[in-house]
């Protein structure tokens, strides 16, 4: 009878010990894995957006160049190739911009509004003025407006990207606090924190 009671006590102590150590360790492990995955996804998304911005800014530069080349040629001497390059650039920029500034609610800031306005400016100038006209003269003012619109949009996108990176960095600070809390939980449970 006494042996039996002693064994039950040992079992209860072991259970208490296990629940004290193992449960927090398990919770900590699961949360660590989840947090790791979230951080990895955020990093991948950040890299993707950065790449998208860079490609779009390059498209804008190229579009402005082909536009300037087109408008710097007298309408009667323009070639179908010049026109096709401008049309293609216009299409590329129109497709890229909504992806870059459209579906990212976190990018709602002043830079985004400016980018939208500059985008309209560029589209207005890239195929505006005497585009596809059969006669007339070179319009230097049109070239100036186009150059200004292209440069303005590139700058606006750079500023917007910078604003987003700053915002993500502040989010990372919150994540670092969370990570420290998890490590503390690990130590409490007697488990080595996961190596970075």
């Amino acid at each position, binding site marked *: 009878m006494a042996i039996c009671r002693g064994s039950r006590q040992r079992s209860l102590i072991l259970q208490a010990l296990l629940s004290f150590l193992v449960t927090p360790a398990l919770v900590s492990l699961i949360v660590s894995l989840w947090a790791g995955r979230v951080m990895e996804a955020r990093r991948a998304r950040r890299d993707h957006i950065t790449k998208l911005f860079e490609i779009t800014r390059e498209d804008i530069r190229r579009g402005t160049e082909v536009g300037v080349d087109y408008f710097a040629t007298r309408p009667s001497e323009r070639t179908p190739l010049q026109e096709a390059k401008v*049309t293609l650039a216009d299409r590329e920029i129109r497709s890229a911009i*909504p992806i870059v500034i459209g579906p990212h609610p976190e990018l709602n800031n002043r830079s985004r509004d400016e980018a939208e306005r500059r985008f309209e400016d560029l*589209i*207005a100038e890239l195929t505006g003025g005497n585009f*596809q*006209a*059969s006669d007339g003269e070179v319009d230097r003012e049109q070239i100036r407006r186009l150059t200004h619109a292209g440069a303005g949009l590139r700058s606006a996108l750079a500023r917007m990207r910078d604003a987003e990176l700053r915002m993500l960095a502040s989010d990372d600070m919150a994540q670092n606090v969370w990570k420290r809390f998890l490590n503390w939980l690990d130590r409490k449970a007697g488990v080595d924190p996961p190596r970075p």
Partner: protein
Amino acid sequence: MADVATISIARDFSPFPAGRKRGDGPFTGETFREDVLRPKLAGGQHVILDIDGVEGLPSSFLEEVFGGLIRLGWTTDNLKNAVEFRHTDPDLEVYPPLAWRFAEAAASVH
């Protein structure tokens, strides 16, 4: 309530509108304005301008249509009441605000 007319630029005019004046080609802004849009507006119809299906609307084309209507005596407000854009393609999102911008710019110098 005015009659409503829907004009699909791609179907009723061309999927590749290009140029400003008639002499610039077969599907120019002036041709669209005079042969397609203006007759409907003159008949007092409310026009839904469906822009889906076009490859693009060059600004020279768009300015000739909307800036041109202002130069012909329309006011921006009347035009905005009479014409409504419709599209589902996100790549065409920029055109409605651009059209009104051209109308307002033309009104400011007219």
